[in-house]
């Protein structure tokens, strides 16, 4: 088929059907009162808006959906950061990804989404370690970061049958430090890179093996938007890292201002 024929065959309506304007959504972030808030804005300008959960213990949001663990409830967030489902959690500990939750006590992996929750029949013995982070779901597989003793492993779990389809031990600084008893900080797995919070810096390692660091002492990292990771540091205001193919850039978040 010639280029001319393609052009002729495609006809796009020359007007936007029902353009919808809104305030741009960055994602979510926890404020100094431990309240999880919606963050609107663009790079360099952030506005903390409504509270979506109090006493948030852990949270993950990727712009399409997310999960919040309040210690007593697991909140499922929609793409617009509204709470679309709540379910009580008996277990305090949970490892969260934007669409998955892993409960270490029972070695249960749950997939969540707008349609509902589903349990992935994963075999605990196959994990053989401590799950410390969940990656994004890609091609019906969810990535688990697992510490087997002090060794760092990345496992791919088939979300249909719970089978582990891939195990690998990446090298690098993150692999060396993620499972240390003293230094095992907060880890975020993204599709193309992973970030580890340590006492001295945030370590970044891409799938291509490129390593870099940001000189920020962080106590907690969380994925909080399509391109955003939140940094929490003791005694410091919350910050956000924008993740782009070109690299990472750190911004500071403003304190929350209550709207009248």
């Amino acid at each position, binding site marked *: 088929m010639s*280029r001319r024929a*393609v*052009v002729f*065959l*495609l*006809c*796009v*309506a*020359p*007007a*936007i*059907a*029902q*353009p*919808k*304007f*809104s*305030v*741009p*959504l960055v994602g979510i972030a926890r404020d100094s009162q431990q309240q999880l808030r919606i963050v*609107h*804005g*663009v*790079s*360099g*300008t*952030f*506005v*903390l808006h409504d509270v979506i959960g109090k006493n948030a213990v852990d949270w993950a949001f990727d712009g399409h959906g997310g999960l919040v663990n309040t210690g007593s409830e697991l909140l499922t967030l929609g793409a617009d950061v509204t709470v679309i489902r709540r379910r009580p959690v008996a277990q305090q500990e949970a490892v969260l990804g934007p669409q998955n939750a892993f409960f270490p006590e029972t070695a249960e992996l749950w997939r969540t989404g707008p349609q509902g929750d589903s349990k992935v029949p994963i075999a605990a013995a196959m994990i053989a370690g401590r799950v410390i982070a969940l990656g994004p779901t890609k091609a019906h597989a969810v990535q688990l970061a697992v510490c087997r003793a002090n060794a760092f492993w990345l496992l791919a779990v088939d979300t249909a049958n719970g089978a582990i389809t891939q195990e690998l031990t990446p090298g690098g600084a993150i692999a060396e430090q993620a499972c240390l008893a003293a230094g095992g900080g907060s880890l975020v797995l993204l599709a193309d890179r992973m970030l580890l919070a340590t006492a001295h810096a945030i370590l970044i390692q891409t799938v291509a093996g490129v390593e870099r660091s940001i000189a920020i002492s962080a106590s907690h990292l969380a994925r909080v938007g*399509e*391109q955003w990771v939140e940094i929490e540091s003791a*005694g410091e*205001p919350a910050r956000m890292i924008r993740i782009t193919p070109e690299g990472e850039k750190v*911004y*500071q*978040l*403003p*304190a*929350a*201002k209550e709207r009248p």
Partner: protein
Amino acid sequence: MMRRLILLACLGTGCLSAQLQLFILQPGQADPIVNVPASFSFGECPVGDVRDVQFRLLNAGTGSTQLTTLAVTPPFSIPYEPSLPETVPPGGTVDFTVSFAPTGAGSFSATLTADGVSQLLTGTGTAVDTVAISVGDGTNAPVPLGAGAGIDFGSLAQGSTTSRQVVLTNPTQAAFTVQNIRVDNLQGSSFQMQPFALPISLAPGGSATLEVDFTPSSTGPQQGALEIDQLYIPLTGVGVNPLFPQPIILIAISSTASSEQGTLTVSLPSASQESGTGQVQMAVTPSMPGVNPDSGMVFLLSGTESVPFTVNQGDTAGQFGSAGSVAFQTGTTAGTIVFTVTLGDFTGTSSLTIPAAPANIDTTTAQYTSGGLDLEITGFDNTRTASTMTFTFRDANGATLNGGPITVAATTDFQEFFATSDDGGMFALHAFFPVTAGNPAQVDSVEIQITNSAGTTPTSKVYFTAP
């Protein structure tokens, strides 16, 4: 009781046929009725005060007697004299009170007379003006305070405190007791006394020290008084704003543009002589009149347009919490941001001019669906004048589809949105282009242009993905 009184009278003076005898009444005491010594002293009494003593006349004789006279000379007096003459039967009594109200410092005496009774009364008037008062500031020896003089605390920064030691010395040979001491403020509560116990007894030659503090509660003259019994000592002082150096605003920002984060420092050209607090305020004058406010233009520490800072004595910069600077966002509105610092009597300003700029596109996503092409664009227009958007769809070979770019007039849509938003020039646009013929998946990429009053912003190619 009566028999006991008569017995007292008989023991003291012998019983006559009709004889008035004088006794002292002490209600509530273990021995409520006692004989009067030859000279009865009322003791010390401050000038202006009154000391009362109750007396009783008893007819200790066997027959009635007439009480025709009952008198005493000043500064003693009988405030409620009985109606005379009065017949007092045997064993009968007449009770009355004698008051001692000294008219000055020194010893006084008088004779109380009744029919057949003559009693010497004495008393000592004490005056606080016999007490020598000197004032010190704790560093040098106290200086005597002249008669009628006040205590001036001078000028002092509001919130600071200075003290004066007020020394009371009794130069007389008699003990002196101060009954009341207090501080009165004519306005506010700038003058305060350190706690002490009353009364204060001053032995001959003895002294006591009080402390009066001055903490100006407002600026301007402050007045009060230290009252020591009847002595009134004016207290004066002036509250002034703290002595700070002129603050200077220093701004560090990588680019003077919208949606930037910078830092602000309050520098002091010399070490501050005072401790206190100040405030920095940011306000924008938009380039475009009548636009909505911009909630993104804030100090990050407070999340608002103002932020406090502290200055300690000796500091050469303001402290924002524990940091020496404070971060801020320039927001998404073109105009002039004016930062104003206030510290004591000083204000200082610094401004940033944020130029109007072509629309900034922050993120773009493109997805094709079975029905068309779905685009999501976020960014900001700091002029809020976005007018047209141009979409150029291309296939995998880079060829333009649909016969060329599609231009969409969006002025009204943007204006309506900005009129309802108080988040500056930020916007997120969800645009859907229905595909009326052909397969949407044939579209590989799109280039978007947004035009506003400052120019046109093109994006690089945005590639379509499946939902």
